[in-house]
């Protein structure tokens, strides 16, 4: 029995389908969810979410939110989920550049520094996820 998955953001329903496996960044670290998982409710971190269906793999960048798992129904409520195909790599590169500069300019342990660090992390996640749409060289 596959997992019934819904991925929803405040703006729209991003994904709804049956998949075989989910790999997702939980607030406590990466989680892998397979069918017959125990009921679980967890916060989400920021990172790469992978949904595997047969030989297909859907890759998203997710940022925060919650996940509910019960009886093979999985609901991912996230603040933002961007499909690998949707990510504008050039913009993410620029964002990384800006964040890096801001990080160097900001005084240590200030609010500005934290903001810059968060922006940098977001840009890096986007770039890593964007990588995924290209066939991998092994």
């Amino acid at each position, binding site marked *: 029995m596959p997992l019934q998955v*819904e991925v929803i953001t405040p703006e729209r329903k991003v994904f709804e389908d049956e998949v075989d496996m989910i790999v997702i960044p939980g607030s406590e670290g990466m989680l892998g969810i397979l069918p017959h998982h*125990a009921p679980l409710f967890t916060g989400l971190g920021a990172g790469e979410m992978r949904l595997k269906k047969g030989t297909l793999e859907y890759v998203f960048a997710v940022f925060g939110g919650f996940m509910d798992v019960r009886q093979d129904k999985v609901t991912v409520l996230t603040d933002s989920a961007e499909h690998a195909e949707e990510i504008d790599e050039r913009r993410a590169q620029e964002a990384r550049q800006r964040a890096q500069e801001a990080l160097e300019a900001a005084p240590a342990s200030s609010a500005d520094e934290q903001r810059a660090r968060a922006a940098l992390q977001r840009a890096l996640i986007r770039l890593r996820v964007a990588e995924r749409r290209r066939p991998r060289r092994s």
Partner: protein
Amino acid sequence: MPSERELVRRVKTVRNIQQVTKAMQTISASKMRRAQQAVLASRPYEEKLRQILMSLAPYTDPEVHPLLQRREVKRAGIVLVTTDRGLVGAMNTNLVRATLRHAEQLPAAGYVAVGRKGIGAIRRFRQPLIAEFTKLGDRPTTADTNPIARVAVDEFLSGTVDEVYLAFTRFVSTIKQVPTLRRILPLVPEEEQRRDQPPLQYIFEPDPETVLEAVLPRLLAIAVYQAILENIASEQSARMVAMRNATDAATDLIESYTLAANKARQWRITKEMLEIASGSEALAKG
């Protein structure tokens, strides 16, 4: 019966008004489409979050989080969501009336008014205003609406109010918008759910307290955001319909004034002809 000149003037006036209502109809029609799409797209998130939270309730202790705790109600807070601008038919009036009627059954009520129309109404009815918000625009983000939720939560946690309601106009369709009042605090699940669940072994990661601490304020923020999106979709739909009705009414008025003016003109011409005829007859006789 107004004079012929007066009638012709009225036709012109109504035609000018019609041009304005027509333009407003077109504008709100395009805004309406966007607002309707936005509200329909964001509904699943709020519904799912609420559903999940309600179904989690049997596994958590209400004492765990202050936002879940029921108290004796001495004073309620009402977040009243209205529009900034008028020309939306009876939408705001209906909501204010429904809200005040509900408030009569409460021991006391204070208002957080969103939108200029609501602020005006609360002042007119001399009700206590806790906070007011305006100029959220046609496309607010959660960053714009979060302060509203924060006021509600703060009032509840400080004990100034023991319950919080959210009053807004829910969007159903272009021609139907419903005044809606919903309690958002304390967050209490329906009673039957609480007991009849089989005791699943739920895992909370990292632990129930931390999870609720993150989810509960989020649900409130989203509920307020959703209410405001509903209200915007209702506003644009109501304005579009109001302006379409005004344009149609103007068409009818133009028609009847034009008819009256034409009748008056014909009557004047007939009268002139009669005068000429009778004049020449009198001359011929004489």
